[in-house]
Every structure is written in C-alpha cells, then in structure tokens.
C-alpha cells in the first residue's frame, strides 16, 4: 500500500509491478522492504522538491508564529485593533489571533517569492492560503478545549491553563497547518506548475 502511493508522478503502478517482478525473480523480503522504504523516502524528498514554496512558507510561518508572537513590536497590535470595543467573538479573535495572523501574512512573502520563481504566482493563491491559515489556526486554537485531559491549570492562576504535551507537538502541528493551508491555497497553481514541469524543454 505504501509503494502504491510512494512513487513520483504517475508511476506508482509501474514501480509496484517492477518490485513484484524482481521479488518473484528471487529477491528477499528484506530487499523488498528496503526498496519500499527507499521509494517512500524518495517520494517525500521529491514532494519537498516539487512543493518547496509550500514547505518554505510552512517553516517560516511556524518559526514566526512560535518564536516572534511576543516580539515587542507586536505587543500593541490587539490594542490598535481596539479589540475591547469589538463585539464577542471578534474581540477575542482580535486579542488572541491578530498577532499570529499578521505573522502568517508576513510569511506569505516567502510563498509569493517561491511561486514567482516557479512561474505559478497568483494573488488568489496567496489570499486562499491566508484564509485557510487563519481558519485552521483558529480551529486549532479553540479545539484545544476539546481535549481537557491535555490541559492543566497554571499554579496560582485558575483562569489560565497550559498544555501538558511536549512543546514540539504543537509546533509540528502548526507546521502541518501552514503546509496544508499552502497546499489547499495553491492547488490550481501546483497543477499549473506540474503542467509546466512536464512540458518538454525544447518541444
């Protein structure tokens, strides 16, 4: 099943057939498993190579939102949005998510640059990526309450809770949130790029 989805392009069936053919020629199970593992790794690296603007955006957006959200320059952003004057839930969204949203917006410049290099730039792709990023960040932020067993009250402050999972877990989840957002946002651009890539260099 792994190899059926592992091969780059549309060669999954051919690769599976080749592996079966070699296996029936007398190769060992260990050889077969090694080949499947290598095909899986090659497929992942090929995916990163093909979609490097999406990965770049996901990495930069994750680093920015996790390590620069509390930067002094951004502390006054919710105040400038007059979050206290907004009706609920906009006040809460403005207070809690304005900084991540702004940082994700900044990270879009990386995606834009990548799409320009890949000749698949479209404004709509950036807009969709930002919308998907915001929607998924919001969903992730508030869905934490669905897992109360993962939350513990901060000692001396019953109003605030902290996650008991290792900090790397939400960071990795954030990375995948941004990656999925970029992928969903740029679906048509990716198709355009794939078509461009498959076109002969000198027809």
């Amino acid at each position: 099943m792994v190899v059926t989805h592992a091969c780059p392009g549309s060669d999954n069936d051919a690769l599976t057939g080749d592996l079966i053919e070699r296996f029936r020629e007398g190769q060992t199970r260990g050889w077969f498993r090694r080949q499947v593992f290598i095909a899986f790794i090659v497929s992942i690296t090929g995916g990163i190579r093909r979609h490097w603007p999406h990965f770049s955006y996901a990495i930069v957006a994750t680093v920015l939102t996790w390590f620069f959200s509390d930067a002094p320059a951004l502390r006054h952003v919710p105040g400038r949005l007059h979050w206290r004057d907004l009706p609920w839930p906009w006040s809460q969204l403005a207070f809690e998510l304005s900084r991540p949203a702004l940082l994700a917006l900044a990270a879009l410049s990386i995606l834009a640059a990548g799409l320009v290099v890949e000749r698949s730039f479209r404004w709509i792709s950036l807009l969709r990526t930002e919308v998907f990023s915001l929607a998924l960040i919001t969903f992730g932020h508030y869905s934490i309450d669905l897992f109360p067993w993962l939350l513990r009250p901060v000692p001396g402050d019953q109003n605030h809770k902290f996650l008991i999972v290792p900090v790397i877990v939400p960071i990795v989840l954030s990375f995948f949130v941004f990656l999925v957002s970029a992928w969903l946002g740029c679906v048509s651009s990716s198709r355009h790029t794939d078509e461009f890539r498959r076109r002969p260099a000198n027809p």
Partner: protein
Amino acid sequence: MSRRSYLGEMELMVLLAVMRLGDEAYGVPISKELLILAGREVALGSIYAALDRLGEKGFVSSSLGDPTPERGGRAKRYFNVTPTGVRALKMTRAALTNLWSGIPLLEGKRL
C-alpha cells in the same frame, strides 16, 4: 546550457541506460543495466525519481505496456530518450570531455 537542461550524475546514468536498452527500457532492466555496467545497485524508487526529473526536463517520454500476471497485473512503463535528451547527452559529454582533457594525472602522465 540552460538551468533546466543540466544532467545530474544519476540522471546521466539512467538516461544512458535508457538509451542502451532501446525499446526494452523499463524499471527492472534499467536497474540491472546500472548494476552490470556501472557497478551501482540503485533502488527502483531512485530510478523512477530520476526518470520523473528527466520527464520534467523533456529528456524522456514514456508509454504504458500491457499488464502482466507476473507483475501482479501491473503494466510496465517503457521509457524512450527524446531528441532533446540526446542533445543534452551530447552537450554533457562535450562538457565533461573538455573538463577531463589537459589533466596529466587523469591521462596517466607523470606529474
């Protein structure tokens, strides 16, 4: 040579193997050709990745054969070198020959 027409080492070897095999170039014979002639045991996944990159560059074209029972009902994908691929091979050989020449150590002369 434009950026898109560069050949990496693996791409070069796979492209040459495809050319040698002619109409019988699919994953299994290509891997055997690389093992016999280049002494490299290359995973089939890596060969398909190289063929995918060569396809993107327009250096190979491919077509599907008929599914066969010994392959679990899977069809073979046959590869052919395109005229662009042949041009790229010639350019790469010329570039490598130029780089190779004039190096006494590689020509068996004493330093």
